């Protein structure tokens, strides 16, 4: 069964790049939502949960790690897998966001194979 995806990044360019790369990876999604920051993402997730969220770290309004924490308090996101996508690859940042409830981490720049490898386990 095809899944639903949300891409959370303050850069519209990066959202398009991620969307294109996800499509190139061969992973099929019923719908792909977009959000420009954590606040917008949480509002959308509250109204309509998705299976997988790809989330940037550094964003205005609400950062990725803050969004992860709040999403994990929402029952609508119980089954949502959150994968961080960022150039921010400091070990403490990655450890912190994973401890807060993220399910994976993809570093930029990325390739279609990176998405395939990290998201495939969540597609079954």
């Amino acid at each position: 069964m095809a899944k639903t995806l949300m891409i959370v990044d303050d850069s519209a360019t990066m959202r398009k790049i991620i969307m294109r790369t996800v499509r190139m990876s061969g992973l099929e999604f019923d719908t792909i939502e977009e959000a420009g920051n954590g606040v917008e993402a949480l509002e959308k997730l509250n109204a309509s949960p998705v299976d997988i969220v790809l989330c940037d770290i550094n964003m205005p309004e609400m950062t990725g790690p803050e969004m992860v924490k709040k999403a994990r308090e929402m029952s609508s996101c119980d089954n949502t897998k959150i994968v961080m996508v960022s150039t921010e690859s400091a070990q403490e940042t990655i450890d912190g966001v994973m401890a807060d409830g993220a399910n994976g981490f993809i570093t930029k720049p990325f390739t279609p194979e990176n998405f395939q490898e990290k998201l495939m386990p969540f597609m079954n």
Partner: protein
Amino acid sequence: MPQTDVKTQVEELSVESFETFCEDIAGMFGIDMDCTAQGPVAETSKGLAKKYKKLAALFTVQSTGILDGDFHLVVDKEGLFTLSGTIVMLPEKRILDMRKKGTQQDAEELDDAVGETGNLLVGSWDRVFREGWSEHGHFLQTGTFIGVPWSDSQENIGIAEDEEFMYIPLEMTVGEFPAFQCGVIFPESLFTEKTASDVEDEATEAESVNENEEVSEEITETPAEAAAETEEVSEPESQPEETAELPQDDQQPEQAELEEVASETQSADVAEETQDSATVPVSLETEDTDPGREQANGVVSQSIENMVHSFPSLPGEEMKSFLTLQAQSVMQKKVVWISSGDSVQQAMTTMQENDAGYLMVGENGVLEGIISWVDLIGAISVYLKPVFAKWRRPADDATLQIRLKVIMTRPVRTARPETSLAVIMENMCQHGLRCLPILDDGGAVIGQVTAFDIFKAMLNTDSEFATVGQSPQGTLLQPQDSE
């Protein structure tokens, strides 16, 4: 590390970083990219003003670790439009036009793409330095300047007009576009203000802060909420009779099916033995959306299902009594608990220390979820396997820090001590589970029944069961498999 060594290391890694950036972008966008380094030179803003006469994009990078301070990555006008145009997939002709006639306004209209170009560039740099230099801390892009930075370099990039810095120039090509200039500017202050011991001290301090943060992490779920999420397996009154009344056709399973069951059972025993000796449990049970979950029609569930529907055909009356065995007679009384706030790594250690295949997740005896070894394996990166060590990155290690509350199975399906094995097996099949916690009247966990417990009970109950697994070549289930 002596200053000259630091500079040499920086120079080598800088060139490697640009090369890696080319590889990364080539992989992302399916284009050819290349770059050629021209060796470091001592330079000033005045000097660069002659090299970068027109527009340029300058990305400020904050560095921590042995290089402590800001440095700058720069691309000329042609590079600015080529790279940003490429990542937003502008038509080739448009990119060529902008390379020639593009204005600052054109560049600013592409500012998001220019910023992301810098972001990707810094991403490649950070990775190369992290992998190539243990004393490297972190790179973070803190600014993007589009314009002519040299006119007021102190204001724009924090470097006085006559201040000398190390500049490493490169020539880069993207696809069929003509080559453009880019480079990196390292202020001399970066090479003098920090010693390796300072870096070590800071790293220790950061580690200590990180540990404290972990300890103080709050567990947000309340036990009461979690308790409400458990689903008890109820026993339908007619279950044994229904099973006994299966049609005659179903009572004689095909030899292949029998072999499959026997083979699975044998594998299960082997797995159980492995679990005992090497503390590597092999089992599975999560929710539908969980990657570690065996589907309801998975191999083991299918085997259990075959067994459920083929009982009447099994030789010996003992199998009938097997169906009516109660959970309390086969369950493992030892259950191991862990907190939902604990990490995957802690769960793995707990499983190994207790020789357990499943952990009950919760606090003070209140069941919030359940976790299996396969759930844990499914949560961590495959690059943690020794065979992939070469490609292992910090993000892979970080998967060990995932909290159990994110991956545990919930709600938890449970059973009562008096629930029959037939019902337990039916539920395991329906929901793709291999372990059911057993609760007493007060809702306290008093044991667990796993698929292996059922296999063991079956072997104990029916002395003739081994004959079911016979193939033309001989008995698949050896007597010594029975306990």
